[in-house]
């Protein structure tokens, strides 16, 4: 692997990306599997029950990482979409496309685990709590983004339109977050991760949770690399097929 780092934009070269990820993907995938399994096994089998929440604290180990991923994946899509708009690097926008379905799955996982957790804790599966509600809205944004990709035939046009949507959508997602906070005070926990919080989650729960978060992040990276590689191939396949059709015509 000889590469001279003239510019970070070189990474956006599909060929370079393919070659680099060809080597990196197996490593990341194995790492992801190990850390993911380790974190969940630790969390599920080797942590005590909470005195108040009982065994339900175990949901924490998937709920929180999934929720964090859901938000951060959208942020990543925003950045890669911007790179496409400004520098027009195909890999960038294809990465955004690949990330969307992962982000949607993460949102769904956070929603479902949250709902299941809500039953014993709040006595209801669903509550129009601000945190939950803004996740539902985020889910809609993911669905809209993916539907737009599907609906537009020309891949470059689709890339442009979805990038603009991602940009505008991000602004409105943040607006919705504040609107929703204003609308309902809610039941959900505050951010207990923050350093200055008075009452942090006890270390017994906290360390395995960190491992789980790392596992989710690694899993995301592995999947995004895999899917972006597929998208690049699909894009090239599309080009070849178009060409064949034109040659035959």
């Amino acid at each position, binding site marked *: 692997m000889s590469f001279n780092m003239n510019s970070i934009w070189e990474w956006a070269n599909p060929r370079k990306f393919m070659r680099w990820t060809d080597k990196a993907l197996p490593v990341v995938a194995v790492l992801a599997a190990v850390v993911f399994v380790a974190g969940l096994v630790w969390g599920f089998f080797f942590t005590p029950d909470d005195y108040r929440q009982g065994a339900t604290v175990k949901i924490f180990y998937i709920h929180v990482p999934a929720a964090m991923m859901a938000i951060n994946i959208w942020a990543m899509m925003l950045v890669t979409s911007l790179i496409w708009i400004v520098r027009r690097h195909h890999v960038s926008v294809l990465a955004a496309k690949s990330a969307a379905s992962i982000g949607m799955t993460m949102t769904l996982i956070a929603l479902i685990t949250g709902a299941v957790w809500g039953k014993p804790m709040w006595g209801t599966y669903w509550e129009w709590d601000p945190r939950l509600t803004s996740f539902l809205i985020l889910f809609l944004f993911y669905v809209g983004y993916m539907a737009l990709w599907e609906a537009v035939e020309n891949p470059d046009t689709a890339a442009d*339109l979805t990038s603009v*949507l991602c940009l505008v959508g991000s602004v409105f997602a943040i607006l919705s977050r*504040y609107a*929703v906070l204003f609308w309902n005070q809610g039941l959900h926990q505050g951010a207990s991760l923050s350093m200055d919080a008075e009452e942090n989650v006890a270390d017994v729960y906290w360390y395995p949770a960190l491992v789980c978060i790392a596992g989710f992040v690694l899993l995301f990276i592995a999947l995004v690399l895999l899917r972006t590689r597929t998208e690049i191939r699909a894009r090239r396949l599309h080009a070849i097929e178009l060409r064949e059709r034109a040659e035959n015509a």
Partner: protein
Amino acid sequence: MIRLFWRDITLAFRSGGGFGLGLGFFLILVTLVPFGVGPDSAQLQIIAPGILWVGALLACLLSLDRMFALDYEDGSLDLLLTAPIPLEGVVAVKALAHWITTGLPLVIAAPALGFLLHLDMAAYKWLIITLLVGTPALSFIGAFGAALTVSLKRGGLLMSLLVLPLYIPTLIFGAEVVRRGAEGFLVGTPLALQAGITAGAIALLPFAAAAALRVAAR
């Protein structure tokens, strides 16, 4: 530009109803709700602000469906793109025309419909004010959605999917102001926030919409 504005207004009139239809939909939706929910008036009074706002929002949404699609199909959009007027201006003018033919009539009709839903007396004032402040945002956000989906056949439903989440903040603040107003609370903050959204949408979204239109024409 002014030409374009008048043309859009004229077209809205000529193509069967213009002013009337957005309104008609609003009316029908608001009358459907009691059929669905049941006729209990105390019940209706509670949900009235929300239903009225949701109704106004849907009426807007449905009528903007084809804001650019018709121009795209008959070739006008290509011609407008090559014309000596900025596309951002075209979008803004069309959104404005949409607001005048749809949003404004809704504002005027809303009190009558509030009556059907037993809306609280104190809330009427706030209903009108929030609709007046909020519906322009609906038209401009809608113009963006319409521009994104202009080149797709049957884009209407996809557009709803893209636009409705963008409408949520406007809806929340609108309905919240009316509810608080009805109970005599302070409404300054949500109203100011709603006005901010409208101002932002009017200032920025024409640029996003114009970008989408240029891509679609390609």
